[in-house]
């Protein structure tokens, strides 16, 4: 069976967090692009877990082709990482950074999947850790007319059925659908495997296949953003913490509890 895994390249969210914490995040002249070249570009962590989910099918004896695709400026490094993890095919659809929105990405991914004669299963991350939107898989599901099973901690294939354990606020829920289907993977799936040095060395020479808007029969109009990002800025945090002093932990504790009681925060 053919499994397509959609991966996005993002700026390392921990590095962004660190720059913000130290008041050093830089935003470019366009008022929206994060410009620090020192922030590493990584595969979105949930997408790495989506690859891991697919590799586990293979561990369990499911015969499958793993086709990893990325819409982005130059995702060669993360696609090589995908190959080192065990992807059979890696493909990039080049677009300029920041030039497409989720709607356009979904259209490109849908056209890509169709150009490959469809897929039995499409795996995505639950959300991209840059924009946190989590809309591409649902939009893709609409375009390809497939059910979308979200926030999975476990995915099992049983014949042409996919069974997914979802992490819901009420606890785990188990759902099923017939393939073809789209599943979005959450971090609860667990740590993705680390590629062996041998595989990493081999993947280093790989050049990803390239699909283009033209080869996918998409016009510039087709991928014009519906949702246009116009501005990005650092969120402000108040920062007026009152520190509770005391010679011992007991002193600090009593002082805090007294304050919270005085303010009727607690009884």
């Amino acid at each position: 069976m053919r499994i397509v895994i959609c991966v996005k390249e993002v700026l390392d969210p921990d590095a962004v967090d660190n720059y913000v914490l130290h008041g050093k995040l830089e935003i470019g002249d366009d008022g929206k692009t994060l410009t620090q070249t020192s922030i590493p570009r990584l595969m979105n962590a949930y997408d790495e877990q989506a690859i891991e989910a697919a590799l586990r099918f293979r561990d369990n004896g499911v015969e499958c082709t793993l086709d990893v695709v990325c819409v982005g400026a130059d995702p060669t490094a993360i696609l090589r990482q995908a190959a080192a993890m065990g992807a059979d095919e890696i493909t990039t659809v080049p677009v300029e950074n920041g030039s497409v929105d989720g709607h356009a990405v979904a259209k490109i991914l849908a056209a890509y999947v169709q150009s490959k004669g469809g897929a039995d299963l499409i795996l995505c991350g639950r959300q991209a850790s840059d924009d946190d939107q989590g809309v591409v898989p649902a939009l893709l599901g609409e375009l390809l007319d497939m059910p979308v099973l979200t926030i999975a901690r476990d995915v099992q294939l049983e014949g042409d059925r996919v069974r997914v354990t979802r992490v819901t606020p009420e606890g785990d829920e188990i759902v099923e659908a017939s393939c073809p289907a789209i599943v979005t993977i959450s971090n609860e799936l667990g740590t993705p495997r680390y590629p062996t040095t041998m595989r990493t060395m081999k993947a280093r020479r790989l050049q990803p296949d390239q699909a283009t808007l033209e080869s996918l029969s998409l016009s510039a109009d087709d991928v014009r953003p519906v949702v246009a990002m116009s501005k990005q800025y650092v969120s402000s945090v108040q920062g007026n913490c009152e520190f509770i002093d005391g010679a011992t932990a007991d002193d600090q504790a009593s002082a805090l509890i007294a304050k919270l009681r005085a303010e009727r925060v607690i009884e």
Partner: protein
Amino acid sequence: MSNALVFCSFDAGRDGIPAGAEEVLTLARKIAAARGVDLDWLVVGAKPAAVDEIAARHGVAHVDQIDDAKLAEASPDLLVAALAGYVSQHSPGLLMMTQTFDARLIAPRLAGRVGAGVVMNVVDLEDTGGGVKATSTAYGGDTRVEYDIAGAAVVGVVADPLLPEPASSSSSPESRSVAVDLGGVDERIQVVQKASTEGPRLEDAQIIVAGGRGLQESENYALVERLAEALGGMAGASRPIVDDGWTDTAHQVGLTGKITRPVLYLAAGISGASQHMVGCTAAKTLVAINTDPDAAIFKYAQYGIVGDCLEVLPALTKAVKGG
């Protein structure tokens, strides 16, 4: 397009009225007023008792309801079909949802189905003359992004503590029953086993004591649970310690966990990464215990204790019990 602006809820079976609904209505009314259009509330499925009263307080013009036996188990294909049917009858210019767990899937599916733009994690909205500018969080709350959508839009709104309390401007909403033909819609997703956490939920807790990696060892999570119990609250956790199995996912607070809105949130040994803070900055009072005086969490906290949580947590439990 001077079509009504619609706030939509469909959680009757699960949540009743979703937490934060009034903040969304506050935002919705602002846009409806700017456009000079009606604000309507669409309830899909059973209508929770409080809807009419809340709608009246927020100046809602119509409370629409799609009630169909098939919607009893609100499942995605049926919900999206019901909403899309409503959109084709009423063509709302803007459809807003509280960003519940289910809405994270329903909003973008609906947008795709009806050809509208979709934005999630919205904390503020502004009318741009028919279109809308949505402000959303990104990078787990580290940054905010403004998006412009020229045409019809579907947005998922997260409760923002900065939003004002809803002002009163009462109306007497007219109830309308909306018929959508769901006869031909088959649900493609079958529930094999329902989620079954019984009892209180972190989202509803008034007091939360949360622990993070600063607790050092799995056994020490009990210190958090003991203080939570002494305060009559619930225990929360940061993601790394949930990942390591110190407690289960139901306790995870943050971007990929629970969005909580307690009166008191006490964070012990939590650094204050944006992805965690998204889940607790709506707390009325935030207290942090951390050995590092420069920890990011102190930027958010009203009260801070610089100290070892392994000592401070038991001391707090003692102080609470000691009266």
